[in-house]
């Protein structure tokens, strides 16, 4: 829809987007939201043996403004739901979410009065990781999958669309 015309040159745009996607996929700073047992496995993934940092996923930052990937590892109870939602809301774009473990994906075995059955109706989930808990390798695999997903993104085109939308809107 003529976005290339705005930015000038499809080739350049694609290259720039590739570069941006490369940067984003190589530095997914996690926001470790480990609430339960899966959090321990997430810790193991961050720690020496599996070392998520190899993929640039270092510097776990608890401030939602600074993180890219929300790793929701563990049970989300109904009491926790608003908190999770708030944290997600406060994250800066672009942001991605992992639902790690059965509890986060669907509530798992805890089909009870106080457990929220799956976080995907609170926040959009990018990668589901089944397992209880998933092995650290499972998490790393999800990270690789996320990288693939990021590589297919079109940040600049989206940006232009947004800008156009905003100018049309106002």
């Amino acid at each position, binding site marked *: 829809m003529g976005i290339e015309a705005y930015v000038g040159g499809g080739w350049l745009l694609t290259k720039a987007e590739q570069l941006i996607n*490369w*940067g984003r996929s190589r*530095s997914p700073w996690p926001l470790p939201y480990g609430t339960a047992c899966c959090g321990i496995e997430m810790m193991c993934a961050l720690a020496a043996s599996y070392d998520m940092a190899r993929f*640039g996923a270092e510097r776990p930052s608890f401030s939602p403004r*600074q993180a890219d990937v929300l790793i929701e590892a563990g049970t989300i109870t109904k009491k926790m739901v608003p908190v999770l939602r708030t944290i997600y809301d406060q994250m*800066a774009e672009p942001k991605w979410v992992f639902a790690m473990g059965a509890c986060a994906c669907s509530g798992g075995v805890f089909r009870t009065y106080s457990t929220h059955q799956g976080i995907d109706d609170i926040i959009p989930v990018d990668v589901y990781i089944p397992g209880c808990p998933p092995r650290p390798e499972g998490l790393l695999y999800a990270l690789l999958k996320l990288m693939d997903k990021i590589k297919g993104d079109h940040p600049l085109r989206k940006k232009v669309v947004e800008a156009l939308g905003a100018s049309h809107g106002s």
Partner: protein
Amino acid sequence: MEGWGIIIIKIVFIWTWTLLIATLMTWIERRGAGLIQDRLGPNRAGPFGIFQPLADGIKLFTKEDIVPEKAHKILFALGPILFALPAFSAYAVVPFGDKIVLGGKEIILQVADVSVGFLYIVAIGSMSVYGIVLGGWGSNNKYSILGGLRSTAQLISYEVPWGLALLAAVLLYGTFSLRDMAFAQQGVFLGFLPNWGIFKQPLGFILFMVAAYAEANRVPFDLPEAESEIVAGYHTEYGSMRLGLYLFGEYVNIYTLSALIVTLYFGAWNLPYVDMSKFLGPVAYGLASFLVFFLKVAFFLWLFVWVRWTVPRFRYDQVMGLGWKSLIPLALINLFITALFVQFTA
């Protein structure tokens, strides 16, 4: 005096160099941390993960910029700028080598050799407080404010022993020019030691070192961003490049401080017992001096990383107690001793 062209080239060079070192520092720190901790650290982006900082940079550049609704817009925007500006410009008076003769022109390897260059560092150092305190306050978040206040109090507290250690150095060298100080460290001391500041002022060096760690907000003095208590300290609410400036400024600060340590206490570009200028050509000498200086700095850069992953951090009151009750009296003693020393050698 050098022409404008050369000066501009020097500025651009030093700027790029600082930037490069600071970016590299982030990589070194993460790889170093990895290796210290029996893991690998980022190694996927480029060979050995050397492009990791680049990826981080791109990520930060293309991240959404959020200004919290409760934040004070002006202060929030000014915070990172006020933090990064002093950090980035402090290097202006620190030398990075002796001199190089190119095309018959003598070029001093220092951006500006001013008579009060040394005090410029002090002044600039005292300005970096604002970035933190205003950023923290501007965010209007409890953790930020607490982090900002803590950090500021810590910075100003350690500026005193820092300044006193510097004062002792000034007493010793009798000049404000960092370049002259470097020259004063040629030759030997007591017949066998290199004539370096550290041998004349071991206490001063330790004080300076400790204060430098505190000034750079590094472990064990990293309370302002002590993750476990106040989330991310004064930059809790900052994301995107604003955060980038804070993180980056910290590394630039570390670089400047390391260079300062080398200049003041480790003989700048002088090698012990050897006078390079005697047997090296003017160009080679210039490069060699730059190299020697940088290698020394690199050691201290590494030390910053190394210490960080070895020690736990202090508690806030302990930081203040250490600063006021131990370091400042020690710094005064150091001053006193130096005065005596100079009195007898003068």
